[in-house]
């Protein structure tokens, strides 16, 4: 398990900045927003969390489609599937998700505070958003694993995976933005949606690997 995580992280770093691409995409999302909604700073600050979340959400779709394809193409998926007695497939998928998140998700979380400043969000809003991203982005990866597993046999499922994944991540997005707003806006609770967010993540961190593992065992019908 650890071995797999280490390998995938190494790969991510070696093959060069899939993480960075995500961050830069994230950046470009943040960059265009002011032009879109005009100079109104309050408004900007107000929808800041939403923008950050959309950016992070879409950014973490990058590279998701390759999650299992690479292993399928060079034959290592056979090894992973064959070893399912020593290490259950769900666990294998889980490890790959962790690695993928470390490469693509974590950089986004780290970058978020800076971008918060760009959107001149109040400090606690930035903090809250970062916290929600930290809790929320893993869920996206886990859901993504499910999408990636059912499209693994397709050479390049990029768009398709996103289409499959997006409906599922909506609750995550909702709770995330909610909690982020809760930190600043009066009358909006923070804890409640935040806990829901954590719950959702936990839920998918079980469902995602299980379903993906099951799908991977069915690849050759």
């Amino acid at each position, binding site marked *: 398990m650890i071995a797999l995580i280490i390998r995938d992280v190494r790969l991510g770093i070696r093959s060069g900045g899939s993480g960075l691409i995500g961050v830069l995409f994230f950046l470009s999302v943040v960059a265009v927003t002011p032009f879109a909604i005009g100079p109104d700073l309050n408004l900007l600050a107000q929808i800041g969390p939403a923008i950050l979340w959309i950016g992070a959400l879409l950014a973490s779709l990058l590279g998701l489609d390759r999650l299992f394809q690479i292993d399928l193409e*060079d034959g*290592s998926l056979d090894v992973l599937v064959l070893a399912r007695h020593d290490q259950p497939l769900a666990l294998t998928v889980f490890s790959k998700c962790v690695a993928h998140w470390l490469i693509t998700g974590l950089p986004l979380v780290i970058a978020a505070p800076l971008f918060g400043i760009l959107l001149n969000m109040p400090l606690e809003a930035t903090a809250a958003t970062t916290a929600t991203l930290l809790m929320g982005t893993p869920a996206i990866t886990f859901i993504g694993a499910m999408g990636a597993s059912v499209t693994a046999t397709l050479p390049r499922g990029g768009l398709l995976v996103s289409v499959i994944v997006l409906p599922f991540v909506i609750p995550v997005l909702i709770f995330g933005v909610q909690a982020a707003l809760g930190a600043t806006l009066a009358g909006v609770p923070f804890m409640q949606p935040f806990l829901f967010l954590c719950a959702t993540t936990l839920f998918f961190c079980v469902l995602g690997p299980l379903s993906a593992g099951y799908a991977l065992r069915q690849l050759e019908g």
Partner: protein
Amino acid sequence: MLIGAMKWDDMRLVVEDLYVSRGGRTIFEGVRFELARGQGLIVTGPNGAGKSTLLRAIAGFLPLDRGSVSVLPNADPVWVHAHFLNTFNAMKTALTVAENLSFHQQFTGAAALGVEDALERVGLLHVLDNRFGDLSTGQRRRVALARLLLNHRPIWLIDEPTTGLDKASEATFARILAEHLNGDGLVVAATHLPIDVPGVKSLRFEEAPV
């Protein structure tokens, strides 16, 4: 792996009346054979006959239309006890040979040889720190073969193990195979190139007479 270790001495790979189809077409019918410890089976036949399909079916990657594959005495599924080597090498080109091998060592239980020793066996110790992607075709294949030595698995299912190997390496591999068999291993190997290992069974695919 314990399961394997326990019943080690009277382990048998039993394939009974196997029917497998792919893309809606039946590839082979009623394949049956049995291997005891120390026995090997060489699968030969023309391109597209079904050698790889047979190996994948045994390894449990393909649904069986009929028949069964199991490891007696206690009817474990094959993948509990088996190494599977497909025609790809299952290595990451971006990582070094050492990184690739040590991953496999840690990922699959029951460590046997160390990474360096395994490489030594295939005579490639000097590429330990090269990117796998910088190796030549044959060097890659030999590294992939070294993987089998990293972890102890009694059953080896290997598909065209010697493609791209030079004469010397072919001999080396034949030696490795023989040792595995003498060490009470079981081997099913699909190949076009004759592998000279004494006393192995053979399974031949032939055009059905029309």
